[in-house]
């Protein structure tokens, strides 16, 4: 029996192929795009509500001015675009960390702590090797950050595999412990005697080289390489297949002879490594030293990135670019229009609210033939409170 040739492949119908590509892209991107649009719209009302409730005069054009300033601050010129990339890179790495864990059915809320430990590992080794040649200092400092993050991810993974303690609670506790560890290290052994406030030395030769503009450091390249590496791991290797299987159906994975405990520990360690790399690149590329309360929200923003990307590594790039652009544009927005920069947290949170309620949005807007908002990651609650190690 002869197989009929696929009409789309056999006839090089450019229009048809473009249409099919557009349809597939729309199916994947519709819900995130609609959520982003609705979130920007909702935030307009938040701006109005904030004006009214704090007794300021209502200016109807303020939200538009704020969004315009946000856009200018993110894409208004070469330096601004480089800044957007620099803000996106840690979110890409952190988003990959959370997304990878999602694929295995694990919820890594601990990216924040792993980020801090990554930065701490990088600054500890970076300061120690700051006089060494770049080829020695930089790779070792980066590796130290990644390993420290991996260790901070290994702990909740091992706790879950051995005792069944759910990673949602343990990783959050580890976030707070990471804060204390950083404070203890920076005000203790790593403190420079010359500074009044607890502060470490500069990392010197261990710093990531600046490639373009003011802060276009080499860590940005590293983030994009990590996207390729995680995609390859997840979709081209046996281990990646096992990780996805455990996430989709732990019982099936166990019956197929896979070892869920081992995969949980491995995935959490890898997730920690990625979040640690995120911390290490921010430290070695931008801040170059560490203060005792090392302020960052990358870890929590990474959860938003991974959710918006539906834990797809390529999707993480787009989600991280969006949130990175908002972070880059926020200072100009608050200077020019006096709208607090926290507005971007509101936008970010509203995007997620619309994403999680996507079933309603699809019904109300009659979006057909599109994929849901979060179904790729909705496997987390199943493992809640249950001992994964006992059948």
């Amino acid at each position, binding site marked *: 029996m002869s197989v009929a040739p696929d009409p789309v492949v056999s006839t090089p119908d450019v229009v048809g192929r473009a249409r099919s590509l557009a349809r597939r892209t729309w199916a994947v991107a519709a819900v995130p795009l609609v959520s982003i649009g609705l979130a920007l719209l909702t935030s307009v009302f938040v701006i109005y509500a904030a004006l009214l409730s704090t007794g300021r005069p209502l200016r109807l054009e303020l939200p538009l001015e704020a969004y315009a300033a946000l856009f200018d601050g993110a894409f208004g010129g070469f330096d601004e675009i480089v800044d957007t990339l620099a803000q996106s890179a840690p979110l890409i790495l952190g988003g990959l960390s959370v997304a990878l864990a999602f694929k295995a059915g694990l919820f890594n809320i601990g990216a924040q702590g792993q980020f801090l430990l990554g930065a701490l590992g990088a600054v500890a080794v970076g300061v120690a090797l700051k006089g060494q040649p770049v080829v020695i200092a930089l790779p070792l400092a980066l590796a130290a950050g990644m390993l420290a993050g991996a260790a901070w991810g290994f702990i909740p993974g091992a706790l879950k595999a051995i*005792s069944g303690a759910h990673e949602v609670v343990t990783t959050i*506790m580890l976030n707070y412990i990471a804060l204390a560890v950083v404070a203890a290290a920076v005000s203790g052994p790593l403190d420079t005697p010359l500074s009044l406030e607890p502060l470490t030395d500069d990392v010197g030769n261990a710093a990531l080289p600046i490639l373009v503009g003011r802060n276009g450091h080499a860590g940005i390249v590293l983030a994009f390489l990590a996207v390729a590496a995680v995609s390859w791991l997840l979709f081209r290797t046996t281990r990646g297949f096992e990780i996805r299987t455990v996430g989709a159906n732990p019982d099936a994975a166990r019956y197929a002879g896979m070892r869920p405990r081992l995969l949980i520990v491995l995935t959490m360690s890898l997730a920690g490594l990625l979040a640690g790399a995120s911390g290490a690149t921010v430290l070695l590329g931008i801040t170059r030293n560490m203060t005792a309360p090392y302020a960052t929200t990358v870890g929590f923003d990474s959860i938003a990135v991974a959710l918006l990307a539906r834990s797809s590594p390529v999707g993480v790039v787009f989600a991280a670019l969006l949130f990175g652009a908002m972070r880059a544009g926020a200072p100009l927005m608050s200077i020019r229009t006096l709208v607090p920069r926290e507005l971007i947290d509101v936008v970010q949170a509203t995007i997620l609210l619309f994403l999680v309620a996507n079933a309603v949005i699809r019904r109300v807007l009659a979006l057909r033939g599109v994929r849901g908002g979060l179904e790729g990651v*909705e496997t987390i609650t199943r493992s809640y409170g249950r001992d994964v190690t006992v059948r």
Partner: protein
Amino acid sequence: MENLIDALYGIPVAGLVFQFVGYLVAIVPAISPIILQVATPIALAALCAVLCERSGVVNIGIEGIMIAAAFVGWYVGVLLGPSLGGTPSAIFGVTPVLLVALAAALLTGMLVSALHAWLSISVRADQIISGTIINIAAFGLTGYFTSLVSLGSPVGAGGFTRLRLPRELVDLPVLGWILDMFLSQGPIAMSLLVIVVVFQILLFRSRWGLRTRAVGEHPKAADTVGIDVLAVRYRNVILAGVLAGLAGAYLSMEGTNSFQVGMTAGRGYIGLAAMIVGRWSPVGALGAALLFSSTTAVGQSISIFPPSGELGALMAQAPGQLYDALPYLVTIIVLAGVVGRSIPPAADGIPYEREATT
């Protein structure tokens, strides 16, 4: 007697343990009211979690509900304080504006909890993700409004004050510090014990409690005997929001008299751990919360009044920040120790969907 104590303290390694026990015995009467104060928001969060999960809904968003309630309570005080003023009452320092602010905080708790109920019961979203998103949204919104409001560093509704026990009662041997612990408190901390006992009795001895547990363990069976599963879940999750709202109100209106961004500091999550350690029962949750709060209080006490002698010298070597991390560390250790033996309600976290009737 004193010779004996000196001899015990002098034993090489075990002596340190005796010194620590001696230190604990010495400080517990002084820190006992603090133990209950630290435990109050954690225990209320844990009770909220118990009520939700006994009905079959996982609520990770307690932290967000608490911060939202704490903010609204404080902000209502800022808005209405000047117009509603009035003299505080002798006991608890109650003013009209404080009561309105408290009501607003509880209402906020209910509203945010209703959002979570809708997302997890009707929309059937993943409940952990829904809760996380509520946390992110609550922190984003409160941060945004705080940076607008706090430009003028306004004064909120103030706060409830603590009852002052007569000195003679506190000085009673043994009984004194227990009275001090439970009665030298503000109204929210003092009502905690009542809430726990009432909740425990209702959950295990009443019709409502039986229905709640049935819906959390086996919703299909509950449905078969005519219980409206979704309605019970909605009602309980929204009611649980009152408890989380009370926890938030405690933070901004009794524990302190102001609001700070992120002032919940993980207490909502520690409450979840307390629920697991307390095996999904109100009394157990209170016990676990007291365990965590005692650790916190002892940690604080060590950094303020370090023990003397050999033990103190040893403790002084550890960085002070590590004592701040103590409650989180204890949470992890206890959780890892008990979780396998603590079994959640069978339908916890699983949205209920009625099969089509034909």
